[in-house]
């Protein structure tokens, strides 16, 4: 019964969406805002990766909101799990191969993540992707069953500091340039690592923030308040 109703309702929704989507031709150029970014973005921001310039410069506010969302999730998750009764969780020791492979791979993944967010303005990738990669390094380390863990305080401090860096960068822009997140650093030479104004700073902050938040989430989920 419930299935029939659901299918019925969803098919109506599908028809409605089809009617609207049929007016959005697939693959046709939509020059309005995107076109402007593609044409002007390189000069205006100095970043080669247009997605990065949109994420950090043009729609930097969204990004600030987004790291906030992740921050909320991390804090909220800790709040939700943190008060629970303290039932421990026996951990099976991982196999020898896995454990030792983790030891080797862990720093490599960290390095890879750092590379991804440091080069966000030049190549695909950026703060989020790098942050997620860093977090996955921690997932791996938990799979490896290592007991050595980074303290929550460190996670928390990194999170806060990264967030504050983002906000402060924006506020300095407001003080200097009159707009929040305005470009206070020169665009520099295109295609070089130290270019594109404030993008690297913000992306590094985001990378640390996302990485530490996701790692913190995983950490909390697995450990649940020891």
């Amino acid at each position: 019964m419930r299935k029939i109703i659901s299918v019925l309702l969803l098919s109506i929704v599908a028809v409605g969406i089809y009617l609207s989507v049929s007016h959005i031709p697939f693959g046709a150029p939509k020059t309005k805002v995107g076109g402007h970014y593609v044409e002007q973005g390189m000069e205006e921001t100095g970043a080669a990766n247009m997605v990065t310039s949109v994420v950090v410069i043009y729609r930097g506010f969204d990004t600030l909101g987004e790291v906030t969302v992740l921050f909320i999730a991390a804090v909220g998750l800790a709040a939700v799990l943190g008060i629970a009764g303290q039932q421990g969780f026996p951990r099976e020791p991982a196999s020898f191969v896995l454990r030792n492979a983790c030891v080797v791979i862990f720093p490599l993944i960290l390095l890879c993540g750092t590379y991804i967010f440091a080069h966000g303005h030049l190549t695909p990738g950026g703060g989020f992707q790098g942050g997620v990669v860093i977090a996955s390094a921690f997932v791996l380390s938990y799979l490896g069953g290592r007991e050595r863990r980074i303290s929550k305080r460190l996670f928390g401090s990194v999170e806060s500091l990264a967030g504050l860096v983002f906000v402060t960068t924006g506020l300095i822009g407001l003080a200097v340039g009159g707009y929040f997140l305005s470009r206070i650093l020169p665009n520099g030479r295109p295609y070089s690592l130290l270019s594109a104004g404030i993008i690297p700073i913000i992306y590094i902050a985001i990378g640390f923030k996302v990485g530490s938040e996701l790692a913190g989430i995983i950490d909390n989920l697995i450990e649940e308040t020891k």
Partner: protein
Amino acid sequence: MILIVSLLVLLMLVGAVAACVFKDLLSAIIAAALVSLIAAVLFYFLQAPDVAMAEAAVGAALTTAIFVVAIRRTNRYEQ
């Protein structure tokens, strides 16, 4: 090209249906991870390497990990 894409889309939808019907939640999670992975490939085809990267890292790896942790803490099977 279009055929490959169609095939991938088909596979993705099948994966989604599988994620919906599997009684074993672990299998469902793997199916959902498959959906994310194929979506990442499709993002790549759509000239969105950034998103593909994020989707692969988040959808296929991280989310799956969280799900697995969650079902270890709860119940592996539906009902």
